[in-house]
């Protein structure tokens, strides 16, 4: 009798495989430089509005673009 447990047994090797991927992935993310600069990103998101020019476009054309 197995009470449907075979599905979980299938999950074990799958999870272990993910564990192997973990190590590789972690080295990657550090080498990719995601954590090098932890100052600029916080500020950068505040600037997006400046390049917005939707308003003018609608005014100029009198309709949406």
């Amino acid at each position: 009798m197995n009470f449907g447990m075979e599905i979980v047994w299938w999950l074990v090797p799958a999870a272990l495989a993910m564990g192997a991927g973990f190590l590789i992935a972690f080295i990657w993310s550090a080498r990719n430089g995601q954590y090098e600069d932890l100052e600029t990103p916080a500020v950068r998101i505040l600037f997006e509005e400046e390049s917005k020019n939707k308003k003018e476009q609608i005014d100029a054309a009198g309709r949406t673009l």
Partner: protein
Amino acid sequence: MQQVERFKYDDGIVRKFTIATLAWALVAFLAGIYIAFEMAYYKLNFGVPYITFGRLRPLHTNAAVFAFAGNAIFAGIYYSMQRVLKTRLFSDKISKFHFWGWQLIIVSAALTLPFGFTQGKEYAELEWPIDIAITVVWVAFGYNMIRTILQRRVKHIYVAVWFYIATFVTVAVLHVVNSLSIPFSLIKSYPVYAGVSDALVQWWYGHNAVAFFLTTPFLGLMYYFIPKSVNRPVYSYRLSVVHFWTLVFIYIWAGPHHLLNTAVPDWAQTVGMAFSVMLWIPSWGGMINGLLTIRGAWDKVRTEPVVKFLAVATIFYGMATFEGPLLAIKSVSEIGHYTDWIIAHVHSGALGWNGFLSFGMIYYLVPKLWNTELYSKRLANVHFWVGTLGILLYLIAIYTAGITQGLMLREVSDAGRLAYPDFVSSVTRIIPLYWIRGVGGLCYLGGFIVMLYNVRMTVKLAAKNPGDTEDEAVPYQAKESTADPHGGFSHRILEAAPMVLTVLVVVAIGTGSLISLAPMFASSSIVEANYKAQMLKPYTALELAGRDIYVREGCYTCHSQMIRKTVSDVLRFGNPSTIEESVFDRPFQWGSRRIGPDLARVGSKYPDLWHYRHMMNPQEVVNGSIMPSYGWLFKDKIDYAILNKKLDVMKSLGVPYSENDVETAEDRARSDAAKIAEGLRADGAQVKDDSEILALISYLQRLGGAK
């Protein structure tokens, strides 16, 4: 040197999700308020099956979580992600598919739950065809998101996006694992897990549904919308990164704290408790980080409704995450579990954190999306104050109710007897508080209706066809130093941090899940041994039919079937429940709230006639009961024909039925039912041989005596 690129954001999809958020919020709030008043005044059940508490509560929770919060998440994610990554969403078509698919899922939920099509697992009630649809749409969402991240023009992935990735990956895994079931009809199915396994999978899911559907995405939104609304960078970006990783790693282990003092092995409970307590640190780190972002801009809290909502939401996040670990301590859980304390805890999160954050976000989004100003800041302020009042009324009433009932139920006199042996007295005591809670809900709804009006007017006064926002950016070079002219698709994929992050998250939750699911292995072998030793008998066909009625009616929303290892539970209901007792339970029905007494050992406590009369009219049998009457069970007929199929599916899942059991299921059920009916008629009751009540009685009478 790369050229500056001009591009447009997909604002249309965000507008769609925003409107859907508002529409479904209304449904969720109305359903919630209705069931709140059903608690206060049971007659509101009206004897109509579709609106009884047991069927409507799942509709309320699903609407609140997946329809209201879900659409809000999608709106916020699609809006902020495009902007921090400086790119349009990967595919307009997938975005549309995502939107309409999700709305269709919600509609089908609303069309099945009131009819009793439920898997009987909290927040995972939807049946298998809908579960498949959810998986498809969810994967479409994730694919759209990952591809968008891959085509970004900013190398750094802003912290909010990490929260979104974690949300996608984790919810996908949780949903699939918890929903695995084998259909026995076009709509209905039995879960592949039974008893304690089902309980562990379910609460591993249930807890993390809260963590990864109601927390991580909203934290991502917090880290975007708070800085934007006060125009200041997040207080500590480094802390936000730490917040993310610690949460992802710790959350996934905490599931067993929903099963403290139960039959789940002690060590698993301890693991759940330990990790829950650890959650204190990152949660509060994040909350303080959010609030400190507003520092120096406190004047905006006074003047800007958006900031007001966001600030208070963050405070509620802090409150809920302070309380959560507290409730995960065994001795606190002993009082709080099964009572309204948990309902209060959930609503400080849902109304305060998720609700207010969504409202703040929408007040921020609507003017931007429709390219105009908010119609009235004053009305938004009114919404804020009325909503806050609603939350306070709700919480004060329901915390009091929960703690009152918890203390009453566990009070034992010096002589070692229960101070309140009569369960109903603990219910009637808190009815006045239920009225106050209902009024709190009405306030919250009132504030929301003001918002609907405000948004409606804003959109009405805005120019037609608001269009898409245009932006420009210089794409970053994937590899500055060693530019590889032959770097093809696979190379870029390898470079892409989102993939890395996705894998990281998968691994984080994978390992955590394994640990929290591990007790299943242990317990399954225990169960197997006990099964052989004690010769536990699986449910008869008629009992199974009755059990399915129990699930269909959502009796588990008011009744537990799990006597805990606590003094008062044992005095009140009998020996603690054991793992073996629920070994055939698909789904498990341990429950999470006791508005009525535990039913784990209700079998043979009363004669059949008692149940007959009680189900017909509870108030006639038990003074002060607030249980709905189930008149339709006396008219509706047992579906005998499907029983062979049901047993067959159970057999394929490993339940020890013989071929003969399966083939004769229908006949045996008929003769069992006839026997019960005969007995009832001998006692003067009127009942037909195929009335559903017979199946339910046969199930109830078997509870606790499963040998």
